[in-house]
């Protein structure tokens, strides 16, 4: 061991990457006590900065001389009182980790900044051996990585699989049988690319992309906390979907949501966009101190913006300097100060707290202007009536009164959405000791984290300036964090798998060149979201088959090398939408107030002491896309699992397996009704058992079953038939689930038997997954 260690500098003169290899070790083992957090710092030693680590007097690291470097000496010290980290720290450095440090010092201890805090640069795509494979520049980055490991990419997925994959990915719905047929018949070389363009132009695309943005923005239809009063934020939700559909550039998307009220040409639309920062929970509890609430909202706003745009977990800086990243406590309050100028007062009681904006639809807007005009005209006419004509005056007064009442009624019916708007008088912001509202310390002014790019020269020190800073070409994080989230939508895991943490403790991207290529290209195209999405889904990387050999899975279980296509369970909202679509129940109405589909009885009542009664909707509202389901903050929709809880900002991916999910897709009214309607659809459309099974299978999975699959389903059908012909009541009960009408020409036992087959199909692993 000693011999090897002694030989290493001779054998290998290359310094380990500071950022990739050295910094994570220092961060894990040293920074908790010798890092950025001034209060936790022991012995006044600071190892996160070159100037304190390589200081002239008594340096901790002597470049080129590990054996003289206190840092390295302490890491292997024989005495328990001297070894670092100390035994009570609970974690010890292993030999390879110490070797990295030794090598780093031996090769001159070069210092570098944390990768994510350095702006990504456009770099030429790498050269690869197999020039036939890449369809997009991003493929060259992927292929280079694979070739360096001697791995071949997977073949392209078969057409039907690919169509189902890309249709689910871009619209959240499966392809229709007609779309499958057309795509299968289209042999032209660009058929796939044209399909992608068709899907990107489908309004369903905006709804699909909006879901994850709503999660990050903690969107809900109630305020949260005990009272959980209802709010109207759905116009903001609809705006998000529209913005994706019209491909609003992401920089504008950012600008409007953070400062749409402050931009020079502010419109109602840009003001609605600022609702992003009003999606925080509102505490309406009596007896709460308004200022304490207000500070809570500011924390939430600052932390949400930091996570969504910067991928930084900032909340620990409420009370102290960040333990690992150079984010001092002071920077937290400077960021918070940007949000401290609004007229939000923290008072409870009003579920829809000002500032608010009335958002009339087209009809309401035209009625309003017509009524306003009518009032004006009536008043003008009244003014012309001679003073002594009491009869006419009375008539005119009555008319004006009636019109004004109409106007008032109309105004009341117009939804009002919470927005951001600054108060005339700015507030002072203070560092709050341990985050307590009533413990103000030093006063601070608005400012951005000092470790990142500079605030744009001449930008105002308000939210508008903050937004401009986020989308500035020098900002190292916004583009990376965004493309990483978009990548995650389609591949199930990010290039940085900790989307909430791009800091020192977050994962270093295995393919940083790929991430940086996507980020700089995204910025270079004017933050063109549809183009980013198109680039990803038309790449050879995305189009690979997801079938995996045992060896490949063993080598790379999470598909981080991207040697195969993505395969993972569909999010729960997409499962429900898929079931509604394949059964023919889906109502494709866009936008509007939230709806209340089926929910097991008593869920709201139990959670709210009977204060909130769940009144399930009827008719079409039961079959809208899941994005329109009413989201009660303290008890979210029961049909949703593994989702961000929508209480505070969350951008992480949830994917678990619990029996409660299986109970949902097996037994919930939504799914049983979908199965029965799918059965009916098939029973009304076609002839023999075999043909019907083929049809049903194609409706759900875009492919016909193979002979073995068909045989199992046929055998199963036979047994279900036998059973239901004996137990007609059971059959009757099963085919009566849900409120949609059933075709009474189909006998209940037959319908029930097919319902079972449909339910089986809707619960297949292949159905629950994106293949």
């Amino acid at each position, binding site marked *: 061991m000693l011999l090897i260690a002694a030989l290493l500098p001779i054998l290998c003169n290359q310094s380990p990457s500071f950022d990739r290899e050295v910094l994570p070790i220092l961060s894990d083992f040293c920074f908790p006590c010798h890092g950025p957090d001034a209060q936790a710092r022991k012995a006044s030693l600071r190892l996160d900065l070159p100037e304190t680590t390589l200081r002239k007097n008594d340096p901790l690291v002597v470049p080129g001389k590990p054996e003289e470097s206190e840092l390295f000496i302490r890491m292997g010290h024989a005495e328990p009182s001297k070894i670092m980290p100390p035994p009570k720290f609970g974690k010890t450095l292993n030999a390879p980790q110490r070797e990295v440090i030794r090598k780093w010092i031996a090769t001159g201890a070069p210092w570098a900044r944390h990768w994510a805090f350095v702006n990504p640069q456009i770099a030429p795509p790498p050269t690869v051996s197999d020039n036939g494979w890449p369809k997009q520049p991003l493929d060259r980055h992927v292929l280079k990585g694979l070739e360096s490991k001697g791995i071949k990419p997977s073949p392209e997925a078969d057409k039907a699989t690919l169509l189902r994959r890309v249709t689910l990915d871009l619209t959240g719905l499966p392809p229709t049988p007609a779309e499958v047929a057309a795509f299968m018949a289209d042999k032209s070389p660009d058929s796939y690319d044209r399909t992608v363009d068709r899907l990107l132009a489908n309004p369903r695309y905006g709804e699909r992309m909006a879901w994850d943005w709503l999660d990050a923005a903690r969107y809900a239809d109630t305020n949260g906390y005990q009272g959980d009063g209802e709010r109207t934020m759905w116009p903001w939700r609809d705006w998000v979907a529209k913005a994706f559909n019209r491909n609003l550039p992401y920089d504008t998307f950012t600008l409007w949501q953070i400062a749409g009220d402050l931009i020079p040409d502010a419109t109602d639309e840009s003001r609605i966009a600022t609702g992003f920062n009003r999606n925080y929970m509102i505490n309406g509890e009596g007896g709460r101190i308004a200022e304490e609430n207000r500070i809570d909202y500011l924390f939430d706003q600052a932390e949400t913006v930091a996570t969504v745009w910067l991928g930084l977990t900032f909340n620990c800086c409420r009370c102290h300097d960040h333990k*690992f990243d150079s984010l001092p406590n002071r920077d937290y309050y400077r960021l918070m100060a940007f949000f401290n100028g609004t007229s939000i007062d923290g008072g409870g009681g009003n579920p829809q707290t000002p500032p608010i904006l009335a958002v009339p639809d087209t009809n309401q807007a035209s009625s309003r202007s017509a009524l306003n005009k009518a009032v004006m005209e009536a008043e003008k006419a009244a003014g012309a009536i001679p003073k002594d004509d009491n009869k006419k005056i009375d008539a005119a007064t009555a008319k004006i009164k009636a019109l004004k009442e109409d106007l008032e009624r109309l105004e009341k019916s117009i939804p009002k959405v919470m927005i951001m708007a600054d108060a005339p008088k700015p507030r002072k912001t203070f560092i709050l000791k341990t985050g307590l509202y009533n413990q103000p310390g030093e006063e601070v002014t608005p400012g951005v984290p000092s470790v990142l790019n500079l605030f744009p020269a001449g930008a105002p020190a308000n939210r508008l300036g903050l937004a401009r800073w986020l989308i500035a070409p020098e900002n190292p994080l916004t583009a990376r964090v965004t493309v990483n989230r978009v990548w995650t939508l389609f591949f199930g895991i990010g290039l940085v798998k900790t989307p909430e943490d791009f800091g020192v403790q977050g994962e270093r991207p295995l393919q940083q060149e790929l991430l940086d290529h996507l980020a700089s290209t995204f910025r270079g195209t004017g933050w063109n979201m549809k183009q980013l999405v198109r680039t990803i889904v038309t790449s050879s990387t995305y189009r690979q088959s997801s079938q995996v050999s045992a060896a490949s899975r063993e080598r790379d279980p999470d598909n981080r090398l991207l040697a195969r296509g993505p395969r993972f369970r569909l999010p729960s909202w997409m499962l429900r939408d898929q079931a509604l679509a394949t059964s023919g129940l889906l109502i494709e109405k866009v936008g509007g107030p939230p709806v209340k589909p089926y929910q*097991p009885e*008593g869920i709201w009542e139990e959670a709210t002491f009977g204060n909130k009664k769940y009144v399930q909707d009827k008719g079409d509202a039961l079959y809208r896309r899941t994005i329109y389901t009413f989201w009660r903050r303290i008890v979210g929709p029961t049909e949703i699992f593994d989702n961000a809880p929508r209480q505070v900002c969350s951008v992480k991916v949830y994917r678990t397996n619990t*029996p409660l999910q299986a109970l*949902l897709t097996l*037994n919930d009214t939504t799914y049983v009704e979908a199965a029965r309607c799918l059965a009916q659809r098939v029973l009304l459309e076609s002839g023999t058992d075999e043909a019907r099974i083929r049809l049903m299978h194609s409706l759900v999975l875009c492919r016909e079953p193979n002979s073995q699959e068909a045989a199992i389903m046929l055998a199963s059908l036979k047994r279900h038939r036998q059973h239901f012909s004996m137990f007609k009541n*059971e059959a009757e009960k099963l085919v009566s689930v849900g409120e949609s009408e059933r075709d009474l020409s189909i006998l209940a036992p037959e319908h029930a038997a097919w319902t079972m087959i449909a339910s089986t199909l809707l619960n297949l692993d292949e159905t629950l997954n994106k293949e």
Partner: protein
Amino acid sequence: MTMSNRRNFIRSSLGGSLLYSGIATDLLARQEADALAPRGAHFPGRAKKVIFVFFSGGVSHVDSFDPKPALYCDHGKQLSLDHPETRGRGGYEKLFLKRPNWTFKPRGKSGIEVSDLFPHIGAQIDQCALIRSMHTSHSNHFNATLGMHTGSFAFSRPSIGSWVSYGLGTENSNLPSFMVLAPQMPYAGTQVWASDFLPGAHQGTRVQGGDTPIANIKPSLSIDQQRREIDALTAIDALHGAGRSDAPFLAARTRSFRTAFGMESALPEAMDLTQESAETKQLYGIERPEARTFGQLCLTARRLVERGVRFVELIHTGSSGNWDSHGNMADHGTLAGQSDQPVAGLIADLARRGMLDDVLVVWTSEFGRTPFNNTAENPGREHHNWAFSSFLAGAGVRKGYVHGNSDEYGVRAVEKPVHVHDFHATILHLMGFDHEKLTYRHAGRDYRLTDIAGNVVRDVLA
């Protein structure tokens, strides 16, 4: 379900056809990737299961477990304190000591004093280690309740039940590993039993009682039919999976369907109290109308741990109609009438069945109540986080022992103070975990239940 049972189960799905049996058997031969597979502790812990009894709202320690004779004689005496609940509050410029509503008596062989508020629990005090020096970091319900469950007083974090489930897995794959018996929502809502960043399988499953204890537990078809459906499902999934080498994922999925199916019968069975004798029900006070609801929940908790559920939480009432007796301390009497006998019955029942050998019972509230008020005649008491009482009983716990003490008026925990983090560290220790090593990496940090604090209270260990 045992392995051989499951084998038969899947075999039966093949409907006598031998065509696919090779595939299915191969599938079974592989280890299932499963978040809930039983896992080992750091060292052999005495407790294998936990029943965590939470009285919501703030139980007055000086009226229940912490006798303060000085409060009776100094009733009406003024004192000066900078207290979080009275600071800057109009009408609370002056504070006066206030005598307890209940009298204390020595109970059991240990002679530990418990007030007449909890005579039944008092009768079981010899089983318990009573901590009279508890203290916590916040005096709001929301924060203190969150803190008592997650170790975090501000942010959403995994619940103690989720941590235990994560650490030990489950013994019965037909039931969730962490179950919550709460007829009403507590302060902090579902955050009280959330798994947060831990895998979702460790989230508490809340049982609401009644006909449908869990959403969608009752299929709209017979068990036989559902079994046929799952059989066909498993067979087709096995075929699909055979060419894909995605076995661990598929196996986990298959298992979740099997558990769901198992739960459909196992949960109603576990909750079916008609199987219990009249004498047992009496022990829990179920025949008394006021104690009926909580008595049934306590008895259900015993049945759940008997069936292998790792962590059961019982919540007495929720975020209203609870122990938060600002208005009138007499409300404590009504609430004790609902809950004292059920909790005592649970301890006695576990003891006589030998279950206290490996079941740990925890009783606590989120904080105590002020030994003073703005007038001595004010009938209520305010929130008090500087001192309160909790107890542990059962597996590995020192019996009939009092730990620590508060000052002469019950204002501050002065002798051997136990913070919530210490309390958690001790519970984890009893389960066989070093609280500093039971960690989970999230957002770049190794998180643990006890944040960055916590010391095991060794004195309460047997």
